[in-house]
């Protein structure tokens, strides 16, 4: 199969900045929401996932996008609400790779506008869980390949349960059941996030990845726990996902994406 495995950075946007995340509950600022997207063009990414995890999904922007909120001079930090469509337009204007945007999408019109204004795919999570028909509606209008259903889960005793509302609400539904149903409803891909492994830098939850992979025919993207190339190699060899993703680790060193990609290719893994 010549289709390559994708190595996908996830950018988490929260209240004005890109952040790193720990167990979906503690966040550290990284920086300007736009600058990073521009630099990624030089790094030959396979794909980019951009998730808005702000409270109430409100998007803030500063007057002059050159100055981030945190490092700005006081007078420039006037948090101004901007609408998600303009935000996506701005993001995608310098983004020459497949771009997925997600966060609070809960109606067809917003989905349509986001896809029209620069995103190639949308990621839907809590709303899709509460209204399963939304998945099929989106698939019918935009094609399954544009719809990623994102699933966050936690391990309780020996089972994995789906959490919604930014990891705050336990739905008591087992992750494999929901993943299979999302596929039935028309999802094009599943983005699987382990809340326990988020930011822990101790490797992926292999058992979780294997379990979900078994029940799916559509592509699976696994996320949560990567600390280095070893972790990516291990999860690929043990659970065979279509793509691997990470949020935090691409923020620590200069050129980290290219360095990790090079290493993975050196280990003869199927990356471009």
């Amino acid at each position, binding site marked *: 199969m*010549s*289709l*390559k495995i*994708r190595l996908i950075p996830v950018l988490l946007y929260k209240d004005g900045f890109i952040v790193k995340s720990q167990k979906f509950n503690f966040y550290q600022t990284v920086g300007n929401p736009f600058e990073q997207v521009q630099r990624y*063009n030089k790094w*030959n*990414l*396979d794909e980019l996932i951009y998730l808005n995890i702000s409270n109430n999904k409100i998007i803030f922007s500063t007057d002059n996008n050159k100055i981030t909120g945190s490092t700005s001079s006081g007078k420039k930090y006037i948090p101004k609400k901007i609408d998600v469509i303009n935000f996506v*337009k701005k993001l*995608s*204007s*310098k*983004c*020459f*790779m*497949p771009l997925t945007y997600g966060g609070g999408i809960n109606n067809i019109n917003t989905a349509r506008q986001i896809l*029209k*204004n*620069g995103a*190639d795919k949308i990621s839907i999570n809590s709303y899709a869980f509460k209204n399963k028909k939304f998945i099929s509606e989106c698939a019918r209008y935009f*094609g399954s*390949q544009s719809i990623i259903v994102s699933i966050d889960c936690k391990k309780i005793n020996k089972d994995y349960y789906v959490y919604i509302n930014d990891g705050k609400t336990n739905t008591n539904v087992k992750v494999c059941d929901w993943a299979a149903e999302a596929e039935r409803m028309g999802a*094009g891909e599943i983005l699987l996030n382990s809340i326990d492994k988020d930011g822990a830098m101790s490797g992926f939850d292999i058992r979780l990845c294997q379990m979900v992979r078994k029940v799916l*025919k*559509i*592509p699976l993207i696994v996320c949560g726990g990567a600390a280095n190339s070893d972790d990516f190699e291990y999860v690929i060899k043990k659970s065979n996902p*279509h793509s691997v993703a990470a949020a935090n680790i691409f923020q620590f060193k200069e050129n980290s994406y290219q360095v990790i990609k090079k290493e993975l290719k050196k280990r003869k893994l199927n990356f*471009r």
Partner: protein
Amino acid sequence: MSLIGIIDHKFGNTKSVLNLINYLNVNYKLCKSYKDLNDCSHIILPGIGSFNETMTNLDKLHFIDSLEQNVIEKKKFFLGICVGFQILFSKGLEFGETKGLNWIEGICEKFNSKKKIILPHCGWNKIISYKKIEILKNISSTDEYFYFLHSYMIKFFDDSTDIKFAYTKYGQKFISAVEKNNIFGVQFHPEKSQQNGISVLKAFCSL
């Protein structure tokens, strides 16, 4: 002085292509009307959606005659992307039979599902035998990957004297790029293919 015309029809992902052309700092124009093509030296036709919808729409907006005049008669450079590439051929088989521009003989049909592949063909795949195609000359053999997103394709057949093909494998061989004199077409999305995509569009605009 070259002017790159980007056809803006209802079913194009014009925005993405526009972003990249804008980044390249060339003179460009968004062509909403068929008359706009007359000023342009190069024409780009982006396309997503279906063969059928694209042809219907181009016809409705009177683009087809204008394209014949500008590309076939006046020999201006043309680049079709994805569905914009598929309609270069004789006909398409999505939702019944639809006539294409018929500038190159061939049929646009669905991937053979017996080959146990997941559709659509979505992701990074390799182009092969591409060096002869002018706009792909600069692609390096260390990275021959482009981003694809489609369920329909043109089955591979051999080069002829005035037509050159590059192909890609996904269960079977299909045509991923074509050059016929001043006409170019690519099945992949250069506007999503990072450095390689930038290189292809740059090369096209420099023709």
